[in-house]
């Protein structure tokens, strides 16, 4: 069942971050971003759907995408802590997006060589979306980091706040390791370091030392924020099981 566990880690990362981005809908600082953020949210939620569906098939217990997304509690979610962090200000949201996309783009690129045909299919679509997310979030990080006094201060504060959560991107829980169908998370590190290093240099941001990286999400130990988010995300499905459009 390591494949099932690994697919859930991926799917939970995508759904939780997708839901976080969707919270900006109607609240973004400008109309253009009010469309861009839900666009990116829909990319992530779309990928999570195919991952949940495949995970359900692998599990073979009759759970579909809705059962996995809406009928699991916080203590059953495997997402890394980074993606569940509250949106904060626009700088934090863009930085979180850059951190995640800079991991997922090389991850999906490696997954294009997977022996598993379904994984190759998901990767082929997602890799283009993640390349765009890096570009979109990266351009904002550069402009805010190397922008006004206030934007530079906020961007550096976002780095101080979120960088400690990035280590967990490169980890899987013990139950999800050793899956041939999916790339090794730890192997993505050099490419992630390179992309973040280039963007930070242009943004004039310092990469902080992180003596104590924050993790636990993969082991289903979450911060306070996730429970509130899931309550809102799941309430309709739990109140009206099986409801359709």
């Amino acid at each position: 069942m390591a494949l099932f566990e690994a697919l859930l880690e991926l799917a939970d990362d995508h759904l939780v971050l997708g839901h976080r981005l969707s919270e900006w809908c109607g609240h973004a600082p400008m109309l253009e971003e009010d469309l861009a953020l839900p666009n990116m949210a829909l990319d992530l939620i779309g990928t999570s759907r195919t991952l949940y569906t495949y995970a359900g098939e692998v599990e073979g217990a009759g759970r579909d995408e809705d059962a996995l997304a809406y009928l699991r509690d916080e203590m059953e979610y495997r997402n890394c802590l980074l993606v569940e962090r509250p949106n904060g200000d626009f700088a934090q949201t863009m930085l979180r997006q850059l951190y995640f996309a800079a991991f997922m783009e090389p991850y999906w690129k490696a997954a294009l060589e997977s022996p598993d045909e379904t994984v190759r299919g998901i990767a082929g679509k997602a890799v283009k979306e993640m390349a765009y997310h890096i570009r979109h979030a990266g351009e904002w990080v550069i402009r805010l980091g190397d922008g006004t006094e206030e934007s530079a201060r906020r961007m550096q504060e976002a780095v101080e706040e979120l960088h400690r959560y990035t280590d967990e991107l490169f980890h899987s829980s013990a139950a999800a390791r050793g899956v041939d169908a999916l790339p090794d998370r730890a192997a993505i590190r050099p490419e992630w370091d390179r992309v973040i290093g280039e963007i930070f240099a242009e943004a004039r941001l310092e990469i902080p030392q992180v003596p104590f990286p924050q993790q636990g999400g993969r082991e289903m130990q979450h911060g306070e924020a996730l429970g509130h988010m899931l309550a809102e995300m799941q309430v309709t499905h739990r109140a009206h099981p099986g409801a359709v459009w």
Partner: protein
Amino acid sequence: MSGEVPLWEVFIRPRNGLSHKHVGSLHAADEVMALNAARDVYTRRGEGTSIWVVPSKAITASDPDQAAENFEPTAGKVYRHPTFYEIPDDVGHM
């Protein structure tokens, strides 16, 4: 925020062989951000294969007060339309 951010005109080419068409405008800090925003605002339903963005201030528009002298004189010159030729039957559809 939009008050400080420049305005851009967006042109999209729907497919190869057609020309770029004006689709609207948006606010963005510079040309790179304008291209990203144009992608997000105007190509969400598969509308395009290419995007141009042009600073709105780079466009010089004709004066609406001169519309009469600009455009009305052509109204009486029907001979400028290519409709006075007999097209031989074997040419077919033109």
